[in-house]
């Protein structure tokens, strides 16, 4: 196994970690897994690709426009597909179907609108996808930047949870009714979290697109592996998600290099199953971390 395999595993793992973090952002105050998360990632990549590669918009403007657009779509999803379910029962699981439905609706529209062809997205100025020859590895400057940006983003998100609003989100996650009695409005935090979680998903899509291309198939792939990273890293734990993302990314890369690439998904999910069988709460959670 050469260092290349490891490097590309870390690059892919960073993307899985970002998807997992976007899951966590939404999950914490609502206890809802957004099954449309993968499609929001894909939507981010597609909108950004269209704005830059097709419409020629400057990188930063397109980036901001994409985040806001997808954030609003997340908010609409929360209003239509999640809030009405939670209003009826906090412990209801109807959101499994409604978020899955949202996912299918987005996927269908995007397929109609953009078609199946992947769009090439160039990295921002100063970075490129050309491989550098450091340590005999074929990693590019963009991929190195992606790894670093992921680390910074996870630290920023963790920092946000140290603010009073962030602590309130954690309070809602632990005991919604107790939070209500302290004047915390879980509904408002839920809406914000859907907006930010969707925008974060869109950002993940943008960051992924120079590596993976922007295409409609981006959604399901990142959904599954991002979900796996969230579960292995313990749901709600962002640092856990980062480590788990790396584990899954590297496992995938190693599996593909040792076996045939056709087995890489099987290898990942065998590892995921093994971890969750041994430690159902994930690698970084305590067994009683979830109180219901």
């Amino acid at each position, binding site marked *: 196994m050469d260092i290349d395999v490891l490097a590309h595993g870390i690059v892919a793992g960073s993307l899985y970690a970002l998807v997992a973090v976007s899951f966590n952002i939404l999950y914490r105050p609502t206890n809802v897994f957004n099954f449309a998360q993968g499609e929001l990632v894909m939507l981010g990549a597609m909108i950004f690709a269209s704005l830059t590669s097709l419409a020629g918009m400057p990188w930063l403007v397109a980036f901001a426009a994409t985040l806001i657009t997808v954030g609003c779509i997340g908010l609409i999803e929360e209003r239509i597909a999640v809030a009405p379910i939670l209003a009826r029962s906090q412990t209801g699981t109807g959101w499994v179907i409604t978020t899955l439905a949202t996912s299918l609706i987005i996927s269908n529209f995007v397929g109609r609108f953009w078609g199946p062809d992947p769009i090439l997205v160039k990295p921002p100025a100063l970075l490129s996808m050309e491989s550098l020859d450091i340590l005999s590895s074929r990693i590019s400057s963009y991929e190195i930047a992606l790894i670093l940006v992921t680390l910074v983003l996870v630290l920023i998100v963790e920092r946000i949870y140290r603010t*009073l609003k962030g602590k*309130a989100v954690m309070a809602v996650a*632990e005991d919604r*009714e*107790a939070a209500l*009695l*302290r*004047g*915390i409005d879980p509904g408002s935090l839920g809406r914000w979290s859907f907006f930010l979680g969707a925008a974060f998903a869109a950002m993940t899509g943008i960051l992924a697109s120079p590596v993976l291309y922007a295409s409609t198939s981006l959604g399901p792939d990142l959904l599954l592996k991002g979900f796996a990273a969230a579960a292995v890293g313990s749901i709600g734990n962002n640092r856990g998600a980062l480590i788990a993302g790396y584990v899954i990314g590297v496992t995938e890369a190693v599996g593909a290099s040792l076996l045939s690439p056709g087995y890489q998904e099987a290898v990942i999910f065998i590892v995921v199953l093994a971890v969750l069988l041994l430690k159902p709460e994930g690698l970084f959670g305590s067994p009683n971390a979830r109180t219901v």
Partner: protein
Amino acid sequence: MKAIVSAPLLSAANVDAGYGHVRVLEDVSVDVRQGRIVVLVGRNGAGKSTLLRALSGLNRPTSGRITFDGRDITTARPNGIVDAGLLHVAEGRRLFRRQSVADNIELGRYGLRLTEQEHGRRVAHIHELFPILQEKMNLPAGSLSGGQQQMLAIAQAMMREPKLLMLDEPSLGLAPVLVDQVLAAILALRAQGVAILLVEQMVERALEIADDAYVMQNGRVIASGLAADIAAGDALHAAFMGEHGAPHHSEPRQSQP
């Protein structure tokens, strides 16, 4: 006594409330005046906690009217009721056990715009009333003893400087010396002008410190008046024995948290 003639701070009039289709409270009327300690007594299942839940907006009344500080809060949302100054420390403390004591105290002021100075002043006030919390600020709330948790739950509410504090079974599961501390804190709060609505199974202790009392049975108020009069009257006896109860008075069973 001027407080008695002024309008009550909290007034629940003819309230019906319950859970889903189960009606627990029937035609309950309760008043709490400024700066007084009011105790609700009655057996388990008499509807005391349900009444507190209705007052704090967790269970919306199906009929009746609740006013607080001159505002109708019958259909207000829990955070609106908290903002109005009516705080509910629920049974079992309901702290955020995974967060530190300091974070729990800080969460008590969620949504309030306080200057650093004012925040510091309120925290200092809490440390004055509950010195033990000062030593534990960085520990997770879940690691505290039951008595310390109760103090922390009251401290959280104090961050908002409430006009009325509702406490549900603050002595539950506490050692006697800690019960004394909690009751002393309640008296200290009253001295600062905070009204207290107390649900308590230690009936005799509660009636000792209370000004007014309500006796509840099967979701209704069966007697009310000055705490001293209730302590001396028959209603209390009837409430704890039921119509066909045991012939001798015994300390009511404590519910499990």
